[in-house]
């Protein structure tokens, strides 16, 4: 009996943790997607390849998030610094840390291939 209760409780605990993690992921995903769509997509593109509608007239093309080279450095810091300080034609954005985190999460989970993801 004790064993059964322990198993049920363990299962419940695992399910709750997974659900919470899933919820957090889904929250990040929704928030990140919304922010990416509104702030980044016009230049970086729907596919994250740096070929958005506003990229065409720029002499330096926006970062390509589908390019493995982009993920070779410390991407979290790179995105954080670029969003806060701007870079070339990209302005500095007024974003809170959790918003930057959500964008980073969305970019890395949407445009980067799983095998390359190590953060």
């Amino acid at each position: 009996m004790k064993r059964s209760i322990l198993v049920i409780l363990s299962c419940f605990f695992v399910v709750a943790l997974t659900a919470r993690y899933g919820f957090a992921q889904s929250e990040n995903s929704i928030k990140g997607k919304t922010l990416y769509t509104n702030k980044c997509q016009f230049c970086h593109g729907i596919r994250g390849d740096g070929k958005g509608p506003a990229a065409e007239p720029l002499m330096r093309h926006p970062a390509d998030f589908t390019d493995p080279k982009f993920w070779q450095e410390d991407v979290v810091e790179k995105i954080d610094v670029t969003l806060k300080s701007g870079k070339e034609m990209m302005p500095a954005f007024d974003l809170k840390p959790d918003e930057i985190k959500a964008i980073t999460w969305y970019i890395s989970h949407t445009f980067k291939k799983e095998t390359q993801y190590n953060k």
Partner: protein
Amino acid sequence: MNRKKSEKVFFLIIVIGLMQLLPVTNAWAVPSFARQTGLPCASCHTVFPELTPFGRLFKLGGYTMSKSSKPYELPPPLAGMAQISYTDFKGLTSCVAPFDKTNRATDKINLPQQLSLFYGGRIYDKIGAFVQVSYDGVDNKVYLDMTDIRYSNNTILWDKNLIYGLTLNNSPTVQDPWNTIPAWGFPFASSSVASNPAAGTIIHGALDQQVGGIGANVFWNNFIYAGATFYRTTSNGIYKPLSIGTATEQVVEGTAPYWRLAIEHRWKNHFFTIGTYGMRANIFPSGYNSGPADHFTDVAFDAQYQFMGTIEPEDTPDNGKPKPKAQKYNITAHATWIHENQDWKASFPIGNTANPNSFLNTFRMNFNYCYKSHLGDINESVSYFSVTGKTDPLLYSSVPVDGSITGSPNSNGFILETDYLPWEKVKISLQYVIYNKFNGAQSNYDGYGRNASDNNTLYAVVWFMF
């Protein structure tokens, strides 16, 4: 000028001076756009209000690009503009508008020529607006000027980017992002008191602030642009608020469709555009708002070339060679030809025109060279313009200065302009308009001894943006 007038002039100068001291962090073309995006004005303008390729996309994006994470702008994206000007040509007086109570339309000094307040930027999420409320120093009136409220979004179609959007505006062609079209074409400022040729096409400003329209536009693959807007009169109905302060003198019957098709191509730093636009409008004769209407069909072709030399060149491979330096100049050339068919179904029977139908052709081209020095931006422009059409002694009758003894609408000439921007928010322009032919003739064109060259106009204007 008496003491009271001098005091008013002095007060205005002080106010404009103080506006320059407002604690803005940056100075831009319509500064609220720049405050919203965090981008410098040169991102969107060569010399304001002429747009760069990126500026055109900002406009097509519905003025919504923003550095803020909120779906709205706080504080609201407001900006202002003041223009003071001096005009000189034969027949003007040395009085100052709007302080002259007798005839402001002949005053050399317009202080101000125009004051404007803009709402320029995002309204909410994907909806943005360019709304201009102006005070006209010559007409001494406040009115709703250029208005373009847009919705914009983007997606992928056939593996390429597609920007799509809606517009609600009050002036045909104001929604267009190229500077070949009448609403945003060269010259970007002109005198409010100078004499102008009698003839002009409907699409070239005749319906500004007298119609309201809803339209849609698409831009696919940064290559093909297509748009259509359907206008109705502002004399009554839901569009009435779009003409606040402007009397609807040109009453459109039913719906007047406007269309636009353009192709843009980029090759390195060179941007080429060719396109067509036009409008069909049935307009009641002056003083009527029912009964038969005159039919106008405007068909236009335009072309633009832009060399964007002020942006850093593309990264070169890391082969040890030094990167090429950014060029500090840009060149723009615009040309547009408009053909208007005029079917005087209403005006001819009541004796307002001598012909049952006629036509007008207008042509404009200009070449701008902008050099960005450390002392400020210097822009040189030269433009040629012409109007030709069918002779009509009733439509173009013989009256002093603005009339025609021959009944011909034909006019042509050149515009030379120099602009200097010591700071991004101040533009000083010196313009000279030279007429070879005015309302059909070079000499005694009005039958009262006035020559075309008597209308040659020296115009100096200072723009302040804040």
